[in-house]
Every structure is written in C-alpha cells, then in structure tokens.
C-alpha cells in the first residue's frame, strides 16, 4: 500500500472531508495539554500537543455506558448500534497497544461486550507517531515502536511540513485514498524523524525480568515496601489505556431508571466491598498489588498480553510521585532475592 502525504495545512480540510459520515475523535487542546475528544465541525486536531491527558480508550469504552432503561416494570434494552462510526484520529502508539489489550478482554474473551464490539468494529483508527518521548514515557520497554505501530488502519509519521500517512489495512487505504502519494523527499524526512526518535529514547525498564519475578507471586512482604505515599486515588487507573474494570449500577429517579456500566478503580475501597460490609482488600498495599498483578501477571496468564503499555500517564498524574517504573525495579529486586533465599 502506497504511503500518502497529508500536509499540515490540509489536515483540517481532510478531517472535515471524513466527517459527514463519521464522528471524529482526535486530540484537542485542553488546559495546556491535549485530550482526545469529539472534534467539532472545522476544528483542527492538536497533533503536536504531546501525549493526550487521558488514553484513547474512552472513545470506544466510555466512562459511563447505559445498558438499558426501565420504568416501573417495563424494560427497554439499549441499542448497541452506535451512531455514526468513529474515526480515532491521531492515536499514540501506547494507546494503540492499549486498544489491543482491551480487545483481548472485551472482544476476544469468553464474553463479548456488545457495546464495545459495535463501536470497535465500525471504527477506523489513525495512529500518530511521536516525535520524541515524554519524560515519563517508557513504551520502548514493551517493544512498542511508534514508527512500526501496533494494529491501526493508517499511521501518520511526522515529516516536516506534512505527515506521511501509511495505510496498513484496506480500511485505512480507503480512508486516505483521496490524498496524494508521498514524494521521496517527505519519505526521507519521515525516515529521519524515526531515526531521531529512536536515538533519543528514554532508558528502558526491565519489564521481562519483572514479569518473570511476579509470575507466581501473591503473598509477599515486598508489597508493603512499595506503597510509599500512595493515597489510593483512582487517577492512575482512569488515565490508563488498558484498565477496564467496571461497576454496574441501577440509577433511579422516581419510577424511572437505567442500568449503567461505569469505570471502576481497584484503588478504591468500594471496589471490593461486599454487600455484607466485609471488604477483603483493605490496605493500600493490597490494592496496589491488585493493580500491578492484574497488569503483569493476570493479563499475561489470561489474555497473553501485558496490561501496561508504558504510556507513563500514571506516573505523570500521580499526586505523590508514585512511579511504576521505580516500583517495577524495586519489586524485581526484592522478589528475586526472596525467591533465592
């Protein structure tokens, strides 16, 4: 498939041309950073705004989803046919990997999530290669390469005054069919951008050694040791590209109600609170253990994929500088010493 050329000056017009039949979700300026959001008519996506605040999962798997509505004895299932199909435009590689991880759970697992499936299968995804890593990024530790990204339909690679749009699937080819072919000069610039990115990568975190070290661990004094200042807020899990745990509640006002599925966070006490009032997971260490083991042990075992993509958002948003990179290092050391002893 031939690489195409998308000039920066023509992005708004190009996106606009896709819009009549699609809803476009793209990074937009947000309080000094950027966030993925539905692009309003004629708006320019913020493709140079760095890593968006929250991951792209929200577009496919919203924080709150209505499953059905009811009114005093009558039930109306919600339609799973989404509105116009989505185009996720300008998705970073870490988020692409995150969508892959969500797919394993919500699409390819024992239970298929009908809402996610309808949205996911209709969506086209346009990746966006980063020019450089943010200080908190460590996607390279997971073998993620924005210039050879995980599954997406088109990948945009920066090339000076333009992006080289490389279609990777038939859906992607159709999407960028209207664009001109990329010329040799721009292809060379794009290649250079890739080289520059790889030359300035952040140091890697020893993920493989860690996955091996925690493979069979549950009870260990090591968990207490990494709690540090964690205050058990849910910031890290809500910005995470792979966290997918949810809560289901019936919201009612008077005789009318709806059942909704909403994101939940393993960092909160309520997450494991039983009806009886018993809570099996009470300490910050137990909750952190859950978060780490879910990402690096359970998902590895059950979905054959890691639940971390190294996007570094949890590191960036943490109010008390709880750094998963640091925790991985310390845990690997402690757990391997403990297993030798």
């Amino acid at each position, binding site marked *: 498939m031939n690489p195409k050329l998308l000039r920066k000056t023509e992005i708004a017009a190009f996106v606009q041309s896709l819009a009549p039949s699609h809803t476009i979700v793209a990074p937009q300026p947000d309080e000094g950073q950027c966030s993925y959001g539905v692009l309003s008519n004629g708006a320019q996506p913020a493709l140079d705004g760095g890593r968006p605040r929250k991951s792209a999962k929200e577009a496919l798997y919203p924080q709150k989803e209505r499953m059905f*509505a009811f009114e*005093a*004895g*009558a*039930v*109306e299932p919600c339609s799973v046919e989404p509105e116009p199909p989505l185009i996720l435009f300008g998705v970073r590689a870490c988020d692409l990997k995150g969508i892959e991880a969500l797919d394993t759970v919500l699409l390819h697992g024992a239970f298929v999530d009908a809402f996610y499936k309808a949205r996911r299968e209709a969506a086209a995804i346009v990746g966006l290669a980063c020019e450089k890593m943010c200080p908190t990024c460590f996607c390279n530790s997971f073998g993620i390469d924005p210039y050879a990204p995980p599954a997406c339909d088109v990948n945009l690679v920066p090339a000076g005054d333009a992006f080289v749009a490389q279609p990777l699937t038939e859906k992607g080819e159709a999407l960028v069919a209207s664009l001109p072919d990329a010329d040799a000069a721009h292809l060379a610039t794009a290649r250079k951008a890739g080289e520059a990115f790889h030359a300035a990568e952040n140091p890697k975190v020893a993920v493989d050694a860690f996955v091996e070290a925690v493979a069979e661990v549950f009870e260990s004094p090591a968990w207490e040791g990494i709690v540090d200042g964690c205050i058990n807020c849910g910031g890290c899990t809500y910005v995470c590209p792979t966290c997918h745990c949810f809560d289901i509640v019936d919201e009612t*006002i008077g005789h009318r*109600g709806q059942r909704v599925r909403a994101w939940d966070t393993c960092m909160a006490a309520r997450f494991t609170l039983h009806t009886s009032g018993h809570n099996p997971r009470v300490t910050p260490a137990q909750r952190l253990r859950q978060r780490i083991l879910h990402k690096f042990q359970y998902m590895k075992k059950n979905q054959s994929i890691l639940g971390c993509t190294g996007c570094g958002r949890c590191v960036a948003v943490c109010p008390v500088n709880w750094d998963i990179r640091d925790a991985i290092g310390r845990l690997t050391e402690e757990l391997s010493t403990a297993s030798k002893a």
Partner: protein
Amino acid sequence: MSERDTFEPKIVAFLCNWCSYAGADLAGIGRFQYPPNVRVIRVPCSGRINPLFILKALVNGADGVLVSGCHPGDCHYLQGNYVARRKFTVLKSLLKFAGAWDDRVFFSWVSAAEGQRFSEVVTEVTEAVRALGPNQDFVKRIPEPLLAGLEQGGAR
C-alpha cells in the same frame, strides 16, 4: 403553548417540625391558599438539613428548594437554626460563585403561628422559580424509555 407557559415548577421544601411544618399546617387550617408546587419533607430541625440534601434534590431534578425553620432565637433545640444559618449562608455564596442553582435555593424563617406567612413564602418561591424556568444545568437525566418495544414484566 411553549414549555414556559405550561411549566409547573417542582419545589422541595424542607420544613422544621416545630415551626415551619406547624406553620404549613396552620396555613391549611386557616385556609390560606398557596401553590401546590411544594413537596414538603419534614425534618426535626433546620440544623438537621445537610447541604447535600439540598444539592441532591436539585441534581435529581427539583426546580427549586425551600428550607424553612424556626425564627432565630426560637429553635426547639436552642441553637440548631443558628448553626444552620451560617451553613446555608456559606452554601448560598458558594452556589452563587459556581453559578449553579443559587437562584433556586431559598431560605426562610416561619413560625408555627405564621400560617399566612407560610403561604406567602411558598407563593413567592414558586413564582420566582416559575420565572426561572425548568432546572436544566447540572441535572441528572435518566432518559425516558421508548415506550415502543418495551418488554413488559411485572405490574405497572
């Protein structure tokens, strides 16, 4: 007719047991008319009213909230309404600052002997809320189920 013309505000009134609730009773006995838009909730004291009650009523779609208790100095529990007065004063100022609901929240002192005053307060509040129109910002919405294709189950 527009929605504005047919709009009948829903107003939640938190009335203290000892004064304002008795005042509402007296309004009934004395045949002082007031608009039927208030839904009265009896509480032991205006000091019992948690600001969350007021906010939750508004989130759940009340168009206005009225809180009424004994006149300062007349509290059955001696100080309840004094404490409440500070609390509500702060609440009102913060709602105003946030631009949320501040003109939909009303406070009054109505004694057990003021049946007529109760009807005046309710009339005043109802007309003020009616003029504002429906509470729309910051309201939790649960969309009406489409009646077609409903799976019937249980008694309606």
